[in-house]
């Protein structure tokens, strides 16, 4: 099973959830999973678009208003180099 990280972006408003996701993904290795929790409904549009542009796979979207949880599989296009230290 791929290693999974979580990111709490609840109560952040656009574009801060995207900025947090972008910054986190840049520290992650290709193939790892990021589970992001959001409450801004705009992320329903933005996170899938962002994943598409960078080639990350959006594996799952869980919705229980106002909570949104996105599970992203990080691609190699945007991720940290494989010799980068994994974040703690």
């Amino acid at each position, binding site marked *: 099973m791929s290693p999974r990280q979580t990111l709490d972006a609840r109560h952040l408003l656009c*574009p801060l959830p995207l900025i947090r996701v972008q910054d986190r993904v840049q520290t992650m290795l290709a193939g790892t999973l990021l589970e992001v929790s959001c409450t801004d409904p705009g992320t329903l549009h933005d996170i899938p678009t962002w994943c598409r542009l960078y080639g990350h796979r959006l594996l799952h979207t869980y919705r229980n208003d106002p909570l949104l949880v996105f599970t992203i599989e990080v691609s190699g296009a945007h991720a940290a180099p494989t010799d980068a230290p994994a974040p703690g």
Partner: protein
Amino acid sequence: MTKRRKAVALISGGLDSMLAARVILDQGCHVEGLNFFTGFCVEGHTHAIRQREHKPIKRNNALWVAGELGIKLNFVDVVEEYKHVLIHPKHGYGANLNPCLDCKSFMVRKGYEWMRANEFDFLITGEVIGQRPMSQRRGTMPVIARESGAGDRLVRPLCAKHLAPTLPEREGWIDRDKLYAFNGRSRKPQIALAAKYDFKDYAQPAGGCCFLTDKQYSAKLRDLWRTRHSRDYALDDIMLLKVGRHLRPRPHFKLIIAREQGESNFLEGYRYQFTHLRTISHPGPLALVDGEVDTDDLRLAARLLARFSKGRLANTVHVQIAGHNQASWTMEVAPLTPSAIPGHWYL
């Protein structure tokens, strides 16, 4: 084989930067976008907060542009760095607290730094000569190029033919003949070019993208600086200025009263940082108290809040008050009458 050149485009989410990026994409260059978050952007936060603005579909317009163009978009958080631009603008402010020329130079400089760090070849913006009274004039174009450090690696594809050829044009990385000569405040050329590219549903162009151009927002920011005796600010400070009615009934405190449910939900996120009030005998908004208050102040705040509740015409309204430590108590108050709320309380 000719090297494919790489351009970074400043993408605001409006039509002009979208067109500029597309023009350069059409010349076979690799293009990526940059979008800066200053904390003062109108879109995004405000749309996300207010429920009545949930239609049409909520989206980040810069990201939508990138999606339409099929380019990557890099978000850059410049909240901290932007403070210096706002507080000490070399070229001064516009009609309100908008430091447009300094802002443009700052963003082009950040873009140029990103360009160099990521080994891109040049930088593009959607600027058009004469489009904006402060930052997009013939005389300011070279100022931005010079002060940002970008120099002749800065290309403005929409008005390039009014300007001297840039390095990418001189070197043949891009074809000057395929750039444009837009000029002035008319939007017709942009709209025609958008139609040529079959762009639809783009964000409405020109102005209104920054809260600092807004008279009321600027008044609230000036009030914040004046009452704190400092021009510094945190992201939460400038966020809260976007939300609710702000009333300052006494010099030492103000109330932030939500205008609708979406704003109440947003202000809920600040209830651990502020003394807050809500009406419990009648439906009503949440209010935050910004400042140090005593019991008399809280009674005034409660009466003011009651005025904005469904109990505004009732003899009395019960208002729950919770302090920083979340200990709460209830006051029974008579709502203020409209005539008891002077206009100058509204910020």
